[in-house]
Structures are given as C-alpha cells and as structure tokens.
C-alpha cells in the first residue's frame, strides 16, 4: 500500500505529527509494563517506600531467582503452557478458517440463522454455563486432562469465525470463480485461495489465541487437578498465596518473565507474515 508522498513542509509536518502521536501513545501503553519491570527490581521495602521511587536506584535481582525457584515449578508450567498454547492455536486457526468459509461464500438454507446462533453463544455470560459445561466434561471423563481446554478450540471460537468470515467476504468473487473454472473443488479453493488471502486475519487470530491461552487461569483452575499440569497463568495466581503475604517483587519478576515469550512471538510473527502479505495482497 502506497501513501502519497508529495515533498514539501506540509507532508513532513504531517509525518512528524504522526510520529509524535505514536510515540506519546506508545509511552502510555508502555506504562503498565514499566511498572511491572520497576517493581521486579525493587525489594518489598522499596516498593512501599515513601516518597515513592519511580526509578529503582539499584537492581535487586533476587526476585527473579526466588520467583522462579522458591515457590512452584515454573519451568514445568512454562512447558505446559507452550504445549497447550500451540495445540489451541492450531485448533483456532484451523477451525475458524474452515467454519467461516461456508458462512462467507456458500449459500445453504438456514445459513444466516445458524450464523446468528453461533454468534449468540458469545452473548451469554460464561458464569452461568460454567457448571453445566463442567458437568458435561465430567460425564465425558475429561476432567484433569487438557481436553476441556483444547477441544473447544477445534470446534471454533465464534469471535475468530466471525472475523474470518468478514475477511472472506471481502475477497472479490473473480478469484474463486477463476479457480472453479480451472477445475478446483471447494476444499481446494478454501486451501489455496481463501486461506492465503486471509493471512492478515489469521495472523491476528493467532496472536489473540496465544495471548488468551497464555493468560487464562480460570479454565486450568477448574479442570486440572494435577499440579504438574498447571499453566503459567495459574501458577502466577497461586504465587499470591493469601492476601496478607504477597511478595510483590517476586510476583512481578515472574510476570515480567512470562510476558517476554509472547512479546517475542509477536515481534517475530509480524515481521515474518507482514512481508508475505504485502507482496501478495497488492498484486490482486
């Protein structure tokens, strides 16, 4: 995508203004992480100190060691979380693109009603379906396994299905038409045309899926019984213990560490996929 770039002060000012806004907003967005980072380098005494210390004047690193070793097997939790995240990610990417296709490009009786029904499943607060859903999983004997956390991903999460459907509907009809004339079947069209063209949406979905799985602690809490299978988010909550004795610097140290992998994945994903998309998208 090309932006017009007339020379002259007006364009340069516009660019500078844009940069300024971006930088200011970025700093604001950085604040939460900055607070976490700063607290992880302070002793508990310093965190509470008066007047408040904005920049720690020395780096107290013991929280990182303590946080990871003194409480819970975070190494184990990390591996569990990575495993679960990957499985769920595959499920979401696969199911959302697969299920969105009929909703976007095929016509069949009851399509719109079914679409609304699917969407409406997001409108009921999960608090009230928690118990019935748990009972179903209990009858299936899936408690204390990763199945209740992973299988729903393969059934599709309406948010992602909806997103893919919007993107698929934005693709001009000529492309699949041409492919059909060339003899490609529907599944082939789905795989070779629709999915690649919706790559930006898939990247977004991947990122959301990773973040959500990484940070969810309620699902692991009620479905997992064996501590060796716990995830990082759950471990982090457990670190708090009872309210009166939270060691915030340890909690923040572990929080910082657990935020870094998703962050790195973000940066990596974007560089990798954005390149591919920019070249193919504009060719259309």
């Amino acid at each position, binding site marked *: *995508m*090309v*932006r*017009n770039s007339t020379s002259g002060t007006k364009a340069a000012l516009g*660019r500078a203004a844009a940069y300024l*806004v*971006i930088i200011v*907003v*970025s700093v604001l967005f*950085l*604040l*939460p992480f900055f*607070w976490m980072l700063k607290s992880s380098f302070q002793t508990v005494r310093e965190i509470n100190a008066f*007047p408040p210390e904005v920049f720690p004047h020395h780096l107290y690193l013991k929280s990182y060691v303590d946080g990871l070793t003194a409480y819970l097997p975070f190494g184990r939790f990390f591996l569990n979380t990575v495993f679960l995240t990957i499985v769920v990610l595959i499920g979401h990417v696969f199911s959302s693109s697969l*299920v969105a296709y009929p909703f976007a*490009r095929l016509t069949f009786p009851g399509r719109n009603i079914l679409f609304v029904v699917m*969407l409406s*499943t*997001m*409108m*009921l*607060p999960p*608090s*009230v*379906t928690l118990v*019935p859903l748990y009972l*179903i999983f209990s009858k299936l004997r899936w408690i204390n396994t990763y199945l209740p956390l992973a299988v*729903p991903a393969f*059934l599709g999460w309406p*948010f992602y299905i*909806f*997103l893919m459907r*919007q*993107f*698929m*509907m*934005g*693709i*001009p*009809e000529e492309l699949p038409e041409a492919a059909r004339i060339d003899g490609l079947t529907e599944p082939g069209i789905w795989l070779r045309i629709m999915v690649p063209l919706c790559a*930006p949406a898939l*990247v*977004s979905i991947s*990122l959301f899926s990773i*973040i959500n799985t*990484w*940070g969810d602690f309620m699902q692991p809490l009620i479905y997992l019984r064996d501590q060796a299978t716990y995830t990082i988010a759950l471990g*982090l909550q457990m*670190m*708090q213990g009872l309210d009166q004795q939270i060691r915030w610097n340890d909690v923040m140290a572990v*929080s910082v560490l657990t935020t870094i992998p998703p*962050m790195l994945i973000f*940066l990596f994903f*974007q*560089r990798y996929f*954005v390149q591919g*998309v*920019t070249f193919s*998208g*504009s060719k259309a």
Partner: protein
Amino acid sequence: MISPWLLRFLVLTVGPMLASLYFSFTDYPILSAPQWTGVDNFRTMVASDDLFWLSLGNTFYYVGISVPLNIVASFGFALLLNRKLRGEDVYRTLVYLPAMVPIVASAVLWKWIFNSQSGLSGIFFHLLGMQSPHWFENPALSKPALIIMSLWNIGPPITIFLAGLQGIPGYLYEAAHIDGAKPMTQLFRITLPIMTPVVLFNLVMGIINSFQVFAPAYIITQGGPLNSTMFFMYHLYRQGFQFFKMGYASALSWVLFAIILLFTLTIFRSSRSWVFYHGAG
C-alpha cells in the same frame, strides 16, 4: 462440511446454554437440584431488585461511551501505524503490551496510574496547574476511569484494523493519486468504504464484550463506590458465585443475552445500508 462440527458444537455450547435457560426458571443453589419456580426470578428482577436497574444503567453508560471511543481510537491509531514507519513492528507490539500484563498486577498498577498525588493523573493535572481529581473513589468519575482504562485494551481492534488496511489493494490509491485526490478524500472514498466489514466486526464485538464488562470492576473497585461501577455482569456473578443463587443469576444472564442479541441484530440489519463487501455476499 458442517454437520459433524454442528453436532459437537451444539452439545458443548448450546447444551449448557439451554441448561442455564432452564435454570433461570428455577431456584438453583448449585450443590442441590434446581427447584422449579416459574417466572419468580424475572418478577423479582423487575419489581424488587434495585441493583438490577442500577447495574443495567451503569452498563449502558459504559457501553455507550467506551464502544464508540474505542473504535475511533483504534481505527485512528491503525491509520497512523499503517505508514512505512521505522520500528513499526515495535509499535504494533507495544499496543498489545497492556493485554499481556497479568491480571494479578492490574489492581495495584491502575491505582498507581490514577493516583491523584504521585501517579500519572496527579502528574498530568499538576502540569496543568490543577488538582487531580480522585478517580476510583469518586462515584462520578469511577466509570470514566474504567472507560479510560479500556483504551489500553485497544490492541486487538488496532491489530484487526491494521490487518484490514493491509488488504486494501495499492492500485486504488495510486489511481486516486493520479486523479489528484487529496489524502482526506482518499480516506473517505477508498479506505473507509472498504474497511466497513472490519468496522462492523469491531463494532459488534465491542458491543458483545463491553456489555459483559466485569473484570476491572471486580478487581479494582469491587463495584463501588456507591455501586457506581456495579455492572450487570458483576451483579450476576455475585448472585451466582457468592450468594449461590444460580437460578436468579441465570435469569439475569438471559436478560443480558436478549439485550445484546437485540443490539447485534439491529446493527446487522443496519449494516445492509453502510457495509460494503468487496466480494460476493
């Protein structure tokens, strides 16, 4: 292609929903069987539950302001980020950073930011030569504070808008540029119309999600002060998991469901006149 998925979907998703619909006509203490009570729950809701109306009002307030605000902010920022910038990957990761901060840290963190003396709010107002107001402790400013907080979560909508912007074919802009169209015209004649499906998505998702706002009120303000941040979902959650009245909570949840569904259907209906799908519909 659809039927096996449909079956499993019905069992795991629609099944529990229907169960909760049944519960809404019962007295259900969770640990023992539900007792049928007919429409009692709904009658109580309307006639004797002050918090029903109050929490509904709070929620409408929140939705009415945060949804448009978030859409405009995220779209605007996505436009800004869509240029060829140096370090654009970093900026795009940065907008997602707040979503990655563990919930554990939220309460303390946001109190620090809104602190009227030494936090961001205090510093900001001090620079303006004014006294910072109290946010979370002030019944009039608690919702605005949470709405401002919600702006930190525009990472996902920004990402989606960016994905949409990237898919706009470049030749459209080139042609417009050759025709001498100004950037503003390009924005309104090319960008916006093509982006309408994505706007629809973020609008609908924004509505669905913000009607269910809960976590910030639960973690930071506990519904206060003076129930100013008692949102409908919090009221519902408390009835179900703290008072163990899951029947009443289910009834409340279906009222919320109906409201959200109504809004969503209305938006979809209206979308026929303002959403433009590039391909076949």
